[in-house]
């Protein structure tokens, strides 16, 4: 387990955020850590489930940060569908 800074945005928001995740976080947990800065703050509560997109690919919700090979300050986008 190790803390890892990434840059992230929720689709529909306006800014790229610095978010600290853990290498053992699943994509669902990553989405939650990003969304807490955005949902009900600048975007209304979203329906559907969160999807994390990295390097143009949607990652399965149970995949961990380490498994996905996400590196420091890589950009991740969260969207809901």
């Amino acid at each position, binding site marked *: 387990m190790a803390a890892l*800074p990434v*840059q992230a*945005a*929720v*689709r*529909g*928001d*306006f*800014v*790229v*955020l*610095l*978010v*600290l995740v853990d290498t053992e976080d699943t994509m669902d947990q990553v989405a939650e850590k990003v969304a*807490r*800065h955005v949902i*009900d*703050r*600048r*975007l*209304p509560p979203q329906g559907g489930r969160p999807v994390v997109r990295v390097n143009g690919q949607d990652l399965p919700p149970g995949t961990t940060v380490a498994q996905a090979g996400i590196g*420091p*300050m890589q*950009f991740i*986008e969260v969207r809901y569908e």
Partner: protein
Amino acid sequence: MPKLQRQQYYDLTRDMNWHFRYVDEAEVFPEAMSKSLGVPAEEWWKWDEPYKLTFREYTYNQVDKDTGIYSIKSVTNRANLYEKLDSGWRSAIKAHYGAIPVPEYLASIGEARMARFGRAAAWRNMATFGALDETRHGQAQAWFPYSLIDKDPQMDWALKTLHTNEWGAIAARHLFDDMFTANDAVSTAIQLTFTFETGFTNLQFLGMAADALHVGDMEFGALISSIQTDEARHAQQGEPTLRVLVANGKKAEAQKMVDIMFWRSWRIFSLLTGLSMDYYTPLEYRSMSFKEFMEEWIIKQFMDQFKDLGMNTPWYWESHFLPELDWYHHGLHLGVWFWRPTVWWNPDAGVSPAERDWLEEKYPGWNDTFGRWWDVITENVRKGEANKTLPETFPVVCNLCQIPIITPCGHAIGKLERPIPFMLEYNGRQYNFCSEICRWIFKEQPERYHGHLSIVDRLLAGQIQPPTVEGALAYMGLTPEIMGQDADNYQWAFAERKAAE
């Protein structure tokens, strides 16, 4: 009393150029300081400007100007004018005072460098006046807010800002060091006096002066109008320098200097002037929108002058710059308001129903784009949950302009294809940029920029402890009485449309 008439000595003394016999020209004018680009000395001697001042005339003029502004200051102080000003307008002038006076003082270094390393005596003469001008501007714009500190402690940041690591201060230092504090004479003439002063300072100084007079802020209006009279004169160093370069086959070099600094100026003025004009100035006193000012002063007047000199609009004009007029500063405003504890003024949300109507009129579609974010914020304020309108993390900032990256904003409103920041790997380090243009500027001169650490880089490097919002506020030098708050104590969120509407 002078024995000679002005016309009998002026040209002779102003154009005192000569060939060097005991030293090499390159020793007198090192390329690093002058950047002559191989243009011969005699070609530089054709440099000319229209003001043709003598030192005697200069000092008489400047005494009159200072007498005028300090007289007005004396009167307005007695009338307690500041207390009567709108809170949003007070924020506009505090943002100005924090960002401008010390850089003006630093600009005297750039002017002094041109006064020594400029390649024509006439240019060095003009730059000497420029150095004195900028000293005056630094002093006046530090003194005016200094006398208001007892009424508003945030005014202390007029002198303090540039000495802190506040994120806007880092952005301003990065820009102004690039533009004049650490620049050669020719580039300073093209980038500071031509691009920045001839083009952009009109926006801040004439545009804001017009708004100041409407608002009733005689003091600020008189101050910056007086400064602009100096700027209009010493900005004239740019055009003759550009003419010499173009006449000697150096148009491409000059064009690149302009392309770089036009974009960097646009970035900082969006942040400073864009917010002030479209959100902080009271609605009833707004003379034009920021976009209208840009269209009048930059797109029409400045670029007409530029093209008359045989130059082209910057390569990113149609593809990147013009589209940003509709969204970039609106996104910055949202960010500055949300991260308001990180600035030295009180951001005015400026989104009451009447203000939103004005924004919709000036920027059709504003309610359906930017309004959506403000709807959520407004609802949280109304529910008494203002804590949800405050930050718990940081935005990532651009490694060139040092301003937060808001590419998702451009994407969300349909102006950018992707929300992803622009990135670059250089010497094993990842750099993040807000735009293709900031990345292009970096790639043009990586050796100039690569060592700089943005405030986010400093956080990740462990320089900010604890690495929290509170730790960052302390690192930026922001104390509770200075940290920005909503300028109107959220009254805008509870304002309702008039019954007739």
